[in-house]
């Protein structure tokens, strides 16, 4: 285990630096003062009430949900196609095509957003929730492909052949055998894509037009110091939802591995 005390101190410092700011969210979300500073003034749930009554926030929230759910669905659907193709079939130019699909993973979002903005304006597509979805599908698909490829490649090919050999068609084999076995991967992919889309700022800011989403709305509210405690409350709620979603995703990933009798090679949590 850890032998050197230096490494131990480093590790603790690292974790504190990483998570202490997040720990501030619940502290100030319940602090009875508009000023974000110590010492604490007392306990209150007023900021949650204020958040709840904010009509602008609700609009942004609904927009964000629409975008995140749509992006997750499309990214996962495309991910299924790409993962299936990359693990089962050989076709000319396969490494290049898969590489292009995975590229947004390492491409700065700034560049993606600028390029999309120029093209969308150029061809005259009005900026809206739909254009944000387009951008989010683009950046979520590589994650979906990565998750689903591992789900598809851990499938024994003879399972498909066995079902086919026993009289099923290609389509019914996919439905009866492949889909149930990769379902944990599909659920993981949906949840991760959803989270990425919900968090995303740059594309949402560039391609949103006058439609506000949660991340952009939160950023805007920081201009008004009296609004900050309510944003802290909102942040706390979002942290809780994120942890919940990631836990569910990890649960399904592990269950998938256990189901197909595979070996755990590390995951998100």
């Amino acid at each position: 285990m850890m032998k050197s005390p230096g490494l131990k101190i480093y590790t603790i410092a690292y974790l504190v630096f990483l998570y202490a700011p997040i720990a501030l969210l619940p502290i100030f979300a319940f602090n009875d003062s508009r000023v974000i500073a110590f010492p604490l003034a007392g306990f209150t749930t007023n900021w949650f009430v204020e958040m709840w009554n904010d009509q602008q926030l609700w609009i942004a929230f609904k927009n964000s949900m629409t975008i995140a759910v749509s992006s997750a669905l499309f990214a996962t659907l495309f991910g299924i196609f790409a993962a299936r193709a990359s693990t089962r079939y050989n076709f000319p130019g396969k490494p290049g095509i898969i590489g292009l699909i995975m590229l947004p993973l390492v491409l700065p979002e700034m560049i993606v957003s600028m390029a999309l903005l120029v093209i969308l304006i150029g061809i005259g597509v009005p900026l809206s929730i739909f254009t944000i979805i387009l951008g989010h599908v683009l950046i979520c698909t590589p994650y979906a492909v990565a998750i689903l490829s591992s789900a598809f490649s851990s499938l024994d090919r003879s399972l498909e052949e066995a079902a086919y050999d026993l009289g099923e068609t290609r389509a019914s084999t996919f439905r009866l055998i492949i889909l149930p076995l990769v379902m944990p991967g599909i659920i993981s992919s949906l949840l991760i894509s959803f989270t990425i889309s919900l968090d995303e700022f740059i594309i949402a800011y560039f391609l949103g037009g006058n439609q506000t989403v949660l991340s952009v709305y939160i950023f805007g509210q920081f201009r008004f110091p009296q609004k900050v405690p309510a944003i802290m409350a909102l942040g706390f709620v979002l942290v809780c939802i994120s942890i919940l979603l990631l836990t569910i995703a990890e649960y399904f990933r592990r269950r998938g591995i256990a189901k197909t009798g595979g070996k755990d090679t590390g995951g998100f949590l």
Partner: protein
Amino acid sequence: MTTTQRPTMIEFRDVHKYYGDYHALRGINATIRAGEFFSLLGPSGCGKTTLLRTIAGFEDISSGAVLIDSKHMQGVPANKRPTNMVFQSYAIFPHLTVEENVGFGLRRDPRSAAEKAMAVGEALEMVGLKGYGKRAAHALSGGQRQRVALARALILKPKVLLLDEPLSALDKKMREQMQVELIKLQRQVGITFILVTHDQEEALVMSDRIAVMFEGQIAQLADPETLYRRPNSRKVADFIGTMNFLPAQVLSENGTVEVEAAGLGRFALSADQVMGGSTGEGATVGFRPETATILFEGQTATDRESMATIEEVVYYGDMTYYDVRFDGVAAPMRLSMRNVFGRPVLDIGTRARVGWSPGALVLFR
């Protein structure tokens, strides 16, 4: 009943298979008879699994024809062929129970649910898994998965059951037990079984007939005894069991073949003992380790006798292997002797008389 009178079940007519430039099957011609336990035996990469998969319909052939029960299989997909397969990995559906696995092929069967459930029960009983129906398939042991795979394939009453190295994942004891069970099962259901294996012992134990394959071709197709006693080439002889080879010269051919071999002297062989298939080093005679015996004091040879020196002794309990060098021969020959109570195991360096018989020899030239 001997299998020779049975009708043909599968026929390969000059089957070729290419993977790009790689010539995987190079002109396979063979017939497999109905109700036969047939094995495709060969080292890995010899094309035996590819050939099996052309029967199942998982591989298209490049040219030639595969016929099942006199019907051309060209263009018939795997799900429409009268064959079922037991996969090397068993391919048990991990998200289904044992009975859902076994009954999987009955999904399109018009029979009532109760009748199907009965068929599943019977299939499970046949493979010795009665009462296991409700278990989760992923929780089974290797041997149990094997049985589920068998029941799942046999429930459709295929004309041909294809087995792709089904025993290779089992430990030795389990494997030997399953060999016997498979033979019994095959006799019971009477279905043509085609087994792919790289294990020559397994093929000898289980099969009515064996096709030995090398490099995409069938080298010899025969029953186990012929294959063992009369291999038609040195390669087959080497692959199946152990065979000793001595350089030889053919002196005359006149009905019988007169041969002189180093260490053994002159002898005559009948025509059926003469094979082609030498490996280019000229003619050789071969004999199996158990067909020659060391003669102890007071024993006389039933046929011929040659002098040799013992070079190596390997004691196996029930058997002793002796490597002996015949006078005038460079390479040692392996003899296997059954140990008899009260008879000593001989020491290295002992001079010994070796009894042998020309009838047990095979000439490759």
